[in-house]
């Protein structure tokens, strides 16, 4: 159940991996689309927290091109709908996430990413 909403908040937490550790890159993913309840207030409130470029890039990598490259100033209903779909309805079920900096791989199985670190990677 890795959705892009949490993926957009997730950086690598390996020891001494502090630069260029966001976003984690998806690899060999299996997607599943599951409908979720649309809550425009929540999406609107969440907008300031999002890292827009990372979100759009990841969404495109996963094959969803409904979001504009630049975050629009005017927020209309259609935009919120698209954002809702990208953030909450695309689930990554299998695959892995890889940190671009230290190349640590976080495997995802049945929707749960394994964020455990080895002893030498703990800060």
């Amino acid at each position, binding site marked *: *159940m*890795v*959705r892009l*909403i*949490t993926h*957009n*908040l*997730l*950086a*690598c*937490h390996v020891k001494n991996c502090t630069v260029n*550790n*966001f976003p984690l890159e998806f690899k060999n993913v299996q997607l599943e689309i599951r409908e979720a309840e649309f*809550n425009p*207030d*929540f999406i609107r*409130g*969440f907008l300031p*927290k999002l*890292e827009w470029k990372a979100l759009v890039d990841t969404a495109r990598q996963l094959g969803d091109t409904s979001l504009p490259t630049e975050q629009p100033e005017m927020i209309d209903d259609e935009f919120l709908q698209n954002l809702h779909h990208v953030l909450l309805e695309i689930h990554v079920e299998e695959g892995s996430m890889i940190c671009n900096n230290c190349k640590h791989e976080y495997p995802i199985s*049945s*929707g*749960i*990413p*394994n*964020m*455990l*670190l080895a*002893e030498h990677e*703990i*800060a």
Partner: protein
Amino acid sequence: MSRPELIAPPEIYYGDIEAKKYTQNTRNQQIQADMTYRALELLNLPPDQPAFLLDIGCGSGLSGEILDEQGYMWTGVDVAPSMLEVALEREVEGDLFLQDIGQGFGFRPGSFDGAISISVLQWLLNAETSHPTSSPPHRLTRFFTTLFSALRNPSRAVLQFYPSSDDQIQLITSIAQKAGFGGGLVVDYPNSKKAKKVFLCLLVGRTDNQQVPKGLEGDEEATSKAQFERRRDRERSRSKSKKKSLKDKDWILKKKELYRKRGKEGVPKDSKFTGRKRRAVF
């Protein structure tokens, strides 16, 4: 009975069997639900505003279910894979992570509007290996510093836990303070042995109404206990007397084995239904 955290590390203690048992136990469910409601109350989120919460040590999603019910979006982390599996089966709404909170979070700064944690912190107080990163102070420091940065300013984190000594409370609060948190301990029903609950109420940032709330006083359980006492006694005595008259599975198998040895004909075959429990008849 000793506390589970003294028996084994969480990912081992909560194996497949224990995880199911824990989740299906109605008493556990009730306690977890009560504490989750209380934690949400202490979290004091602005009403009618959607919030994105972090459930630390979400386990099988007993607390997450209540967050769903209250309309919050949430993300859960837990270190026990079996518990997360049960959570998947129960189809909770939040995203789940397999993560050791003592290793720290990787969430970007300001990600969450609040955090709750039910019966988790005490698990951080035992060292599993002699490696320096496995010592309780180191793990607690890592946990609190990364949690502090993952929370929005201003916001709160409410962590319920079972301390076994004042030293533990001292250790936890001092490390939380060093990590930048304000706030302190909230103790509900401090005079009751059973109903006593310890909440660590941590504050991020400073606003006017950021004050540590008061713990509940009085003796809540006294009334609810007495009501059921008699019925419980009656049921206990009834089940006891029944057990004596019934022959259990081992006894039946032993007898059948004996008859077969003696060459008696027509001894029924053993199957999974042999000597099974019957539903209670009223």
